[in-house]
């Protein structure tokens, strides 16, 4: 790959602006709606992508994919309804920022973290592709069990206010996540006799129910979703809010970079994905923060970490797809279908036979991110005004439209009823302080954790010591223990320092 080749690729992709821009707009619209994953949208638009030239189809798919990942954070910040599982962690600090009247800043942080996180990891992928492709081979089921545990420790973090309630919510979610057929024999477990649950609990209805419907049922109590101070700030939303958001983005530039790389590394592992990446990034960000106690109260780092990781995943997912011919996720699988239709076979040979396609994918992604920041940033000012809509109008629209969106992923009417059932559970959990995010983490990570655990145990024929059999795995175990112990050690040190200070004052 020469510089001339690379510059030529960039020029070609910039020339496809007429495809990239509509794809970005469509990606944002469908990304805001829970239920529309990029793969769903791409499958629905398959006839269109098959009918055009391969480079046009790729530019369209990549731009839509990246925009979709970015847009999931918008409703998560404004109305506490994540557009996708990957944006669920964004609600933890994004929504409190909105309630404090900082919706504009939170949106700008979401956009810049997503765009620059995505852009940096895409450029890194372009430069380091041969080495990055090895990560997927190094991280096996044993190591992935530990990566999942990193995500699950977030339950303990969320449960900080009422540890017992948080753990009950998390384990309840984990058990719900086990519903469906098992990974070895395909025997159904706890499906209540519904065939629709044989594939497990679908994420979208769970997400819609636990967040959108339960939140809408709660917001009925108030006239607006923000307090007086928030209303005043939303009414007078000026460009200064965007500038302030940009200032915060510059201030936390390092946070954007390292959490984006968390997303990249997790995205490379086939089957992992944005949800686990966002949760792990949030948990790690809190762990290494100088002010962990403020997480969950509406701070910029809490928005940046999940959003940067969420978009770091976009390039990571394509690494095994292009380098090994193994789709890193369902969206990558759809892209593979389109490429195969055009006579291109994914895998290492693609770089020799069609380098303009193989590298073009990442160049296209970088260009899409550049277009995206200019498209979405000015919209933050107007988007933030959604909080001024009275709940009299907002709640019914949220409930009925998201119920419809619950249908889209699998096209079962059953999923609408399931979303309502989760809405009821979410409402009760919300009102009685059982954290709905903890339930959702369980539902998302439970099946993945089981899948990797059973696979590892199957390899060792039931010997649990396999989990401690690799150097990388043991290193990850040590880091996991460290991440669990560190907060306690830090609290102990703070208390000790405080006590010493008091003792000094008394003297």
């Amino acid at each position, binding site marked *: 790959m020469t510089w001339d080749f690379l510059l030529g690729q960039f020029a070609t992709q910039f020339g496809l602006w007429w495809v990239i821009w509509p794809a970005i707009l469509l990606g944002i*619209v*469908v990304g805001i709606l829970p239920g529309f994953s990029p793969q769903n*949208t791409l499958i*629905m*638009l398959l006839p269109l992508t098959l009918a055009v030239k391969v480079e046009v189809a790729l530019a369209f798919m990549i731009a839509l994919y990246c925009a979709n990942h970015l847009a999931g954070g918008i409703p998560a910040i404004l109305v506490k309804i994540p557009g996708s599982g990957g944006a669920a962690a964004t609600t933890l600090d994004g929504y409190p920022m909105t309630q404090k009247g900082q919706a504009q800043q939170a949106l700008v942080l979401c956009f810049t973290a997503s765009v620059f996180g995505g852009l940096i990891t895409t450029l890194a992928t372009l430069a380091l592709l041969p080495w990055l492709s090895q990560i997927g081979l190094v991280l096996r089921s044993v190591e992935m069990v530990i990566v999942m545990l990193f995500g699950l420790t977030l339950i303990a973090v969320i449960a900080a206010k009422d540890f*017992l*309630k948080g*753990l*009950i*919510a998390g*384990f*309840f979610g984990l*058990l*719900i996540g*086990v519903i469906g057929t*098992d990974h*070895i*024999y395909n*025997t*159904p*477990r*706890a*499906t*209540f006799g519904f065939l629709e649950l044989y594939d497990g609990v679908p994420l979208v209805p769970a997400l819609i129910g636990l967040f959108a*419907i339960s939140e*809408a*049922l709660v917001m*009925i*109590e108030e006239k607006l979703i923000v307090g007086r101070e928030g209303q005043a700030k939303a009414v007078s939303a000026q460009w200064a809010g965007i500038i302030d958001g940009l200032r915060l983005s510059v201030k936390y530039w390092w946070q954007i970079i390292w959490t984006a790389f968390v997303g990249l590394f997790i995205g490379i592992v086939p089957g992992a994905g944005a949800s686990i990446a966002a949760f792990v990034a949030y948990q790690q960000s809190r762990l290494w923060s100088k002010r962990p106690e403020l997480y969950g109260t509406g701070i910029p780092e809490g928005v940046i970490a999940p959003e940067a990781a969420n978009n770091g995943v976009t390039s990571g997912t394509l690494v095994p797809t292009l380098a090994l011919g193994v789709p890193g996720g369902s969206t990558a699988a759809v892209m593979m279908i389109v490429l195969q239709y055009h006579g291109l076979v994914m895998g290492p040979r693609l770089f020799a036979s069609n380098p303009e396609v193989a590298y073009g994918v990442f160049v296209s992604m970088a260009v899409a991110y550049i277009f995206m920041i200019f498209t979405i940033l000015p919209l933050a000012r107007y988007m933030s005004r959604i909080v001024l809509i009275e709940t*009299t*109008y907002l*709640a*019914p*629209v949220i*409930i*009925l*439209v998201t*119920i*419809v969106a619950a*249908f*889209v992923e699998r*096209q079962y*009417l059953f999923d*609408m009823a399931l979303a*309502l059932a989760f809405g*009821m*559970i979410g*409402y*009760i*959990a919300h*009102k*009685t302080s*059982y954290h709905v995010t903890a339930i959702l983490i369980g539902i998302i990570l*439970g099946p993945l*954790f*089981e899948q990797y*655990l*059973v696979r590892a*145990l*199957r390899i060792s024929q039931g010997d649990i010591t396999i989990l401690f059999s690799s150097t990388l795995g043991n290193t990850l175990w040590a880091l996991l223990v460290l991440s669990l112990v560190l907060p306690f050690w830090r609290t102990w040190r703070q208390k000790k320092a405080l006590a010493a200070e008091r003792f000094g004052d008394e003297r």
Partner: protein
Amino acid sequence: MNKAPLGADLIIPALALCFAGYFFFSIADLAWEAKANGVLIGTVLIVLIAIQAVRAGMELAAGRGDLSLDTLTAPRDALPKRLGMVLLTVVFITAMPWLGLTLSLFLGLAAALYLMGVRRRAQLFWVPFSVAASAYLLFIALLNTDLPHGPVENAIAASVAWF
């Protein structure tokens, strides 16, 4: 002294306990690979619920709580709206296969807005109309999903075919 409404606090543990019981029943005859993870999670969950039950029992015994559901029903003036929205959603889901997406969304949203206290006719028409029209354009015209078609969708399809 206000007593803590522990009845509401115990609903999620009660649901989780019932589900854990059903889960164990459903996996009783399965191979170890199919149950290992579920048994582990279910057992921990039951232990946690037991601790929560003991905690609630101690609060009750000390007279600091009661078994009321006040947390769930407060504030009382929002309760009819909330229950009405849930019932309306059930009707909406049930009616959609017959009415189709667009009409059911229009009627459902108009009814929901009325339930929430909106009385101005223009708003009761234009808000549901714009949402239903947008949903039609996005879900059916653009993305061609399999959402149920009803009189509106069929009429539009027939008109398009005729032209």
